[in-house]
């Protein structure tokens, strides 16, 4: 979370990207010079199914304002079935966060193939804007980690 008095709120977005599709998609949007905000920081994982709900909560704890998970399109998983498990896990996790009153627009799953550089950039732009509108994450932050 970075707040600058003169500027608008700059949310911190953590993006988990699977190595085979989405990380390559992110690379492609770089190769094609398709801009998206610096707010987005990518963590590479072998498959979206590697992402433990604990990682997502950890990001919010440490000051992230939005967390997005990107994986191969259903049916295209490098490991055949990983993203199907991801889909169920994240659907349930996000639903639980929503149930606890955490803003649902702070979390998202998006399928981005290695060829979809444009989609990756567009998704990140859109998601960053959505989180920016929500303002800083207050409901799932750890006050001890807030920057003085």
């Amino acid at each position: 979370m970075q707040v600058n008095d003169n500027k608008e709120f700059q949310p911190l977005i953590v993006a988990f990207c699977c190595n085979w599709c989405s990380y390559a998609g992110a690379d492609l949007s770089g190769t094609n010079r398709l801009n998206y905000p610096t707010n987005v920081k990518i963590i590479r994982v072998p498959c979206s199914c590697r992402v433990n709900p604990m990682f997502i909560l950890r990001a919010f704890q440490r000051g992230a304002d939005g967390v997005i998970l990107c994986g191969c399109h259903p049916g295209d998983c490098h490991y055949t079935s990983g993203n199907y498990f991801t889909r169920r896990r994240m659907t349930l996790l996000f639903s639980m966060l929503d149930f606890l009153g955490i803003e649902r627009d702070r979390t998202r799953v998006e399928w981005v193939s290695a060829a979809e550089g444009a989609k990756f950039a567009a998704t990140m732009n859109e998601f960053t804007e959505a989180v920016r509108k929500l303002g800083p994450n207050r409901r799932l932050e750890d006050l001890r980690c807030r920057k003085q």
Partner: protein
Amino acid sequence: MLKISLDKLGKLFEAISASQTLYIPTDREDGAAEYKKYESGMKLSNNLNTLRSAKDFFFPQTENLVDFKMEGKNIEVIDVREESEDFVIFGVRACDARSFTILDKVFLADPVDSYYKNRRDHGTVVTMACTRPAETCFCGTFGIDAAAPEGDAACYSDGESLFIEAHNEKGQKFIDSVASLLEEGDAAKLDEVREKTRDILKKLPLANLTTDNFGGDKLNEYFNSDKWGELSQSCLGCGTCTFVCPTCQCYDIKDFNTGHGIKRFRCWDSCMYSDFTKMAHGNPRLTQLERFRQRFMHKLVYFPANNNGEFGCVGCGRCLSKCPISMNIVKVMKALEVK
């Protein structure tokens, strides 16, 4: 003795809270009582006792000890201690009042725990005599008179008025600060109320429980008792008993990395937990039996051994109500006593 009419209790609270922070037991939605910072209109609970004990005021569940600020490879130590403000805890029962004496023996003995002492020095304990003890009460076992509580000052109710009496200088200072609201009253009726309470106490199911068979010299008698296996067999190893206990005082010190520094804090620990007192070589008490035994031996044998015969239990009965499997110190005492 000074008194105030019960219907003016609100005014009394307003007066106290005007000069310092006041905590009173109040009912929450689920019917349980808990200490809350007094705000206008808050009602004093009619419950016998609070769900959590009053020890939090002096020994909170978590407490920051020191901060370390980290920038790159540099570390700076920041002392986070601040002088506490004065506060009053009102309506403490006799059992909880005694628990402070027990905690004092741990935290105020050399070396003095400055964090504890800071709060203890600034806190005034105003107790309230019990009139409707519960079946789980056994404070009498430890020589506590529920009808005549300790504390800096004590309150008694005769149904119409609240009588206040100071036990020490701090208590007197407290009474002086609200003296304008108080009037001199006839405390004669109080003896009757006390006797009535004591009669009820005698009739309670646990009235005959004594500590006669326990004390600092009983280590060899009980440590290897074959009763521990049966007593501990269904213990879940949770910390409920220790966390609702007013006298349990074990804590752990941990570091939390905030990303830009370290917060070193302490938090309550439970001897029922599998990693309690874990050291470099591992854990000294590996089975739940040993951990279970530790808790009760501590309260009934080790603590009196080190504290002139004072037991580490005040008979408040919280663990009797709250243990998920209803195992508790009373059952342990009764089982161990049978030869």
